[in-house]
């Protein structure tokens, strides 16, 4: 476990260094300096910049006329809510579809699923998101078009996660507010999770089919175990390891998709905030937004990597 932490710690350190260096350079691009540095030298300023970041001083947005951190804290929970749900969708449905396809290899279900996932994989999500809105929101009227919650609900921001806050204000609205928030969340999450879901489904299928050819599966069959047990315990335990690693890559796909998705659904998250900042050359906000999204990618990757290592006993306890 210790060796594992050191290995992941090293990669974490390197990516954090690269990231902060990038945002540091960005933060110096604006018309006026973001921070007041005492050091004259570039390197000294970088370390001072790090100190500012850690102290919570992320600069001052000239557009909004308030500290960047304030806007960040306003928008960040919305994005996390959306991203986590999208990732959950992608992993749960991706795994399910992949297992179903592998189970019926070469049959019509397998071919259909693989065709559908290929279509999903090739889908431009800005177009796909609008199609979903057209069908479910405008034609069928099942879901709201935009935003996080209807204006009739006045939810006090406690955690700023709408799903949790709406549950907290249950005394006032019952579960209505929660379901309303969920309905708002569902289309953007589907839009965002389509591509990763397709990738995970295809990956699951091929990984599972590869594992099912292994000799230990033959051993498991010779023990007389049921097909369900062989797939869910013996095969999936091993097939899941590369899938988890791939899911880490999916997080970065989701992060780049989140900007456009938030824009389509008028979702008040970091992506929409960042887009606005870019169009108005607000470098302080750009720098903070990039930092936030990248930190999220790094954090998810680290968590999934650790999980994958935990699943793989050969990495967990080297002999």
């Amino acid at each position, binding site marked *: 476990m210790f060796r594992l932490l050191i290995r992941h710690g090293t990669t974490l350190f390197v990516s954090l260094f690269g990231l902060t260096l990038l945002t540091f350079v960005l933060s110096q691009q604006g018309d006026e300096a973001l921070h007041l540095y005492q050091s004259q030298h570039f390197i000294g300023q970088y370390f001072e910049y790090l100190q500012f970041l850690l102290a919570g001083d992320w600069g001052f947005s000239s557009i909004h006329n308030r500290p960047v951190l304030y806007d960040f804290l306003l928008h960040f929970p919305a994005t996390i809510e959306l991203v986590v749900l999208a990732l959950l969708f992608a992993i749960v449905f991706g795994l399910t579809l992949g297992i179903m396809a592998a189970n019926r290899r070469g049959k019509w279900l397998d071919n259909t699923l693989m065709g559908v996932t290929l279509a999903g994989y090739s889908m431009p999500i800005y177009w796909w998101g609008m199609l979903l809105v057209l069908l479910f929101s405008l034609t069928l009227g099942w879901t709201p078009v935009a935003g996080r919650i209807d204006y009739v609900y006045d939810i006090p921001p406690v955690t700023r996660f709408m799903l949790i806050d709406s549950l907290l204000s249950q005394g006032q609205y019952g579960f209505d507010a929660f379901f309303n928030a969920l309905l708002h969340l569902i289309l953007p999450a589907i839009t965002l999770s389509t591509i990763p879901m397709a990738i995970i489904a295809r990956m699951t299928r091929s990984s599972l089919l590869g594992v099912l050819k*292994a000799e230990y599966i*033959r*051993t498991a069959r*010779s023990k007389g175990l049921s097909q369900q047990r062989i797939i869910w*315990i013996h095969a999936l335990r091993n097939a899941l390891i590369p899938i988890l690693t791939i899911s880490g890559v999916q997080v970065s796909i989701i992060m780049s998709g989140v900007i456009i998705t938030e824009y389509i659904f008028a979702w008040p998250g970091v992506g929409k905030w960042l887009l606005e900042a870019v169009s108005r050359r607000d470098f302080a906000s750009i720098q903070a937004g990039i930092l936030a999204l990248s930190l999220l990618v790094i954090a998810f990757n680290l968590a999934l990597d650790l999980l994958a290592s935990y*699943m793989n006993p*050969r990495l967990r306890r080297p*002999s």
Partner: protein
Amino acid sequence: MSLLQIENLNVDFMTDDGLVRAVDKVKLSIDNGQVIGVIGESGSGKSVMALAIAGLLSPAARMQADLFNLDGHDLTRMSPAERHKLITGNISIIFQEPTSSLNPALTIGYQLDETIRFHEGGTTKQRKDRALELLAQVGIMDAKRRYKEYPHQLSGGLNQRVMIAIALACQPKLLIADEPTTALDVTVQSQILDLLLKVKEEHNMALMLITHDFSILAETTTKVHVMYCGQIVESGRTYNLLSQPYHPYTKALLDSVPHFGMRYKKGRRLFNLPGSTPPISHLPVGCYLGPRCPYAAKKCVQAPELFNIKGRRVRCHFPLIEEEES
């Protein structure tokens, strides 16, 4: 009474070249508690035959048999599910590569425990005791520690012992050992072999040893089947077959093994059969050994049948009997 009786067992594979026959009209029987050997080169179909008997063929394979009796039940008249149940309850199999035959993501204990749970049942405590007992039986010293470990932490020999313990947990009447020692060190080989014979006695199982090493068979088996290109070319009692092979292929196999007491002479070479085993998708016409056989004659373009001669079965038009006697 025979435990296992098989007649005309065929296994075909659908390939891009068409239907390929990997096991051709194999006939064999094993009595309770008997040890038999199957020998042949790589690709002679002996492993496929073992998998067919153990019901572990891949879906791409087609298997058919005129007779397939196991422990008094006619398997040809059963549904696949019933057959699977009967086979897994009566036949266990261990493989050449013990380490890749065990699941790398699960502990030894778990893999043993689930087998016991499936075949014997019992409470968690009972199953754990039984597992430790089995591990001790197959000669694993610190069973308690090994129980918690993963296959990659064990040596090949230890993993093969674990495989044997798992096989024993199924309480089989027949244990098929498919080249159980090929991947192991020489010193470990004999240990595993001794262990197999020991547990065979203790559990009163029959044992089918599949190998390409005559020295293993000579010490352990009562009966040997020699396979070439998916066919049994000769079978008989081990001692007779090894001391006086009737089939040219058996003789060639025996001649190609150096034996103790052989004198070194300059320029002397071990006998080797010219050519190589033909791929089963492109078999020669007639006797499959024909093109390589030093005794081949015109008649050999007709496929020979397996016939009984002096208590042996030989698939050859010109068995090497007269020559030995004259």
